[in-house]
């Protein structure tokens, strides 16, 4: 502390009282607000996860690790964990591959200018729409009575593809959800990868071409190594954001149903906490704490693994 202030004095001799006041005015209220809105709830969720607490009263009973033990043997939570992992697995593969493909199409495939402009404009649209608009529209597309999908399939005489009990149930439930998650999740990553590919120096491609490398080899030996850090960003961001985005997508779509078949962990923790019929806030917070630990650890490990590959 003494050292650092000495350095500052040398660097910036006019660190006057008014400047210090200025820093406090500009920084402290924001920090306190952020602490109150984001850090305090996190600390509270950790503390209350050791209690039996309804949230609506001040009665709290200390339980130790009982909430944690119960949540890890809760069949709905375990089912939700499997669902989360399934969705994340397919999102990782499909979003990364499709975002890269679309970015390559825009930058490297020598499509016509209007085509490129059209793709860039259109493919980003699912990202700017509200999740409630997206889910309601897809609910109607999948609707068994008035839905667009069944109507189109009937018009094409492909009736045999229509599931008898509807799309958002049984064997078509998870694939439908995964499709919507991928569909609505590509835009941003495509834009990031387009920017990354455009930043690769043109000379690298020229010299690769002189060496006789075709488009495919240019992709493997020039494009991908040069945008590896952005691909890593895409994969880690999908992993990190999915616990939340799975919850916000499924809540308006199926709300975890039918019969918890599409339940995900974030939604379960939310429902158990907020639903007045259940209202086990301590239990919900134990689930949330487990989720935070999982997503921090997995992202950290994943980032580390991909970084190692980068060094080779």
């Amino acid at each position, binding site marked *: 502390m003494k050292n650092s202030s000495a350095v500052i004095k040398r660097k910036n001799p006019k660190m006057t009282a008014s400047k210090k006041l200025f820093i406090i005015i500009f*920084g402290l209220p924001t920090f306190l*607000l952020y602490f109150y809105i984001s850090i305090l709830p*996190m600390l509270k969720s950790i503390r209350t996860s050791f209690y039996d607490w309804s949230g609506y009263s001040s009665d709290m009973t200390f339980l130790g690790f009982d909430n944690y033990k119960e949540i890890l043997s809760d069949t709905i939570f375990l089912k939700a964990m499997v669902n989360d992992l399934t969705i994340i697995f397919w999102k990782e593969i499909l979003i990364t591959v499709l975002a890269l493909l679309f970015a390559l199409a825009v930058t490297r495939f020598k499509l016509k200018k209007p085509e490129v402009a059209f793709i860039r404009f259109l493919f980003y649209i699912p990202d700017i729409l509200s999740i409630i608009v997206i889910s309601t529209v897809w609910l109607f597309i999948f609707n068994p009575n008035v839905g667009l999908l069944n109507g189109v399939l009937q018009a094409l005489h492909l009736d045999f593809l229509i599931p008898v009990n509807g799309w958002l149930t049984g064997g078509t439930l998870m694939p439908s959800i995964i499709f919507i998650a991928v569909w609505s999740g590509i835009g941003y990553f495509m834009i990031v990868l387009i920017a990354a590919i455009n930043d690769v120096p043109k000379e690298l491609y020229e010299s690769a071409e002189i060496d006789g490398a075709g488009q495919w080899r240019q992709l493997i030996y020039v494009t991908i190594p040069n945008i590896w850090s952005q691909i890593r960003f895409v994969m880690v961001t999908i992993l990190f954001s999915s616990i939340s985005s799975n919850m916000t997508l499924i809540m*308006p779509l199926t709300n975890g149903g039918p019969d918890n078949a599409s339940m995900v962990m974030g939604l379960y923790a939310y429902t158990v*906490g907020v639903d007045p019929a259940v209202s086990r806030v301590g239990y919900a917070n134990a689930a949330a704490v487990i989720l935070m630990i999982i997503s921090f650890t997995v992202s950290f490990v994943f980032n580390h693994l991909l970084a190692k590959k980068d060094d080779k």
Partner: protein
Amino acid sequence: MYRKKANKKIGRSVGSAFARTGLRIFLLLWSITILLPIVWLVYSSFKDNREFYASPWTLPSELRFENYVSAWDSANISAYFLNSIILVVGTLFLFTLLVTTTSYILAKYKTFFTKIFKVFYFFAMMIPSSLLLVPLYFQFYELNLTNNLFVLMVIYAVQGIPLPIFLLSEFMANIDDAFIEAATIDGASEFVIFSRVVLPFVKPILFFLCLGNIMGTWNEYVTALTFLKDEALYTVPIGISYLVNQMNYRVEFGSLFAALVMAMIPILILYAIFQKQILNGMGTSDGLKG
């Protein structure tokens, strides 16, 4: 040898033409999955229930604008719009104030506290706010402040600041100190330097961050759903989910679709006008450059 090379080149260009055609077909199919739902939503919003049940994908027999009138008036979308606009304006004001001020001191004042703040906001970027919704809700429930647009405004403005602070302070740090020193010699106060010298330099990125904030607030669903229980305070997304839930009792597909179209329009207009700023800003928002 020469011939062999020429052949190989022909083979390659045929192959890539083939690949390009395949790619075009795939891109076209993917475009349809985005365009068709939107187009379907728009033209279906002019249908009546009988037409919906008769055939889900045919065009309406006439343009029933009364669906829009009924959504706007009797389904109360006008009130939801007003709430959403109040929320967007208030959040934007607070967000801009908080982000610009903190970014500035993080970028240009290297003191013990600003360094701590910097590390703090960097790690805060990783906090998944949707998992903190339950404790946050009960934190405000104790104060009896859950049914409150102003509280929601503060939550929106504050929760989203770490990444914008990270990006904006990077841009501010790149401003040449000579400009600031010159202004100081001219006798400008700290606040004048901030508002007249620093902010104009970061206008493009700040504008992008504000657009993102507007769209995010307009679209936000889960937090608003948790906090707002009073129908008079509903925002557009909550209003829509309310209409969808009501469908179990009384189905008016046309006006529900009209409501969805109206919820989309402001965002699509904003996107169409500022597409360049949004896409360019998004391209650099991974923070991996420089």
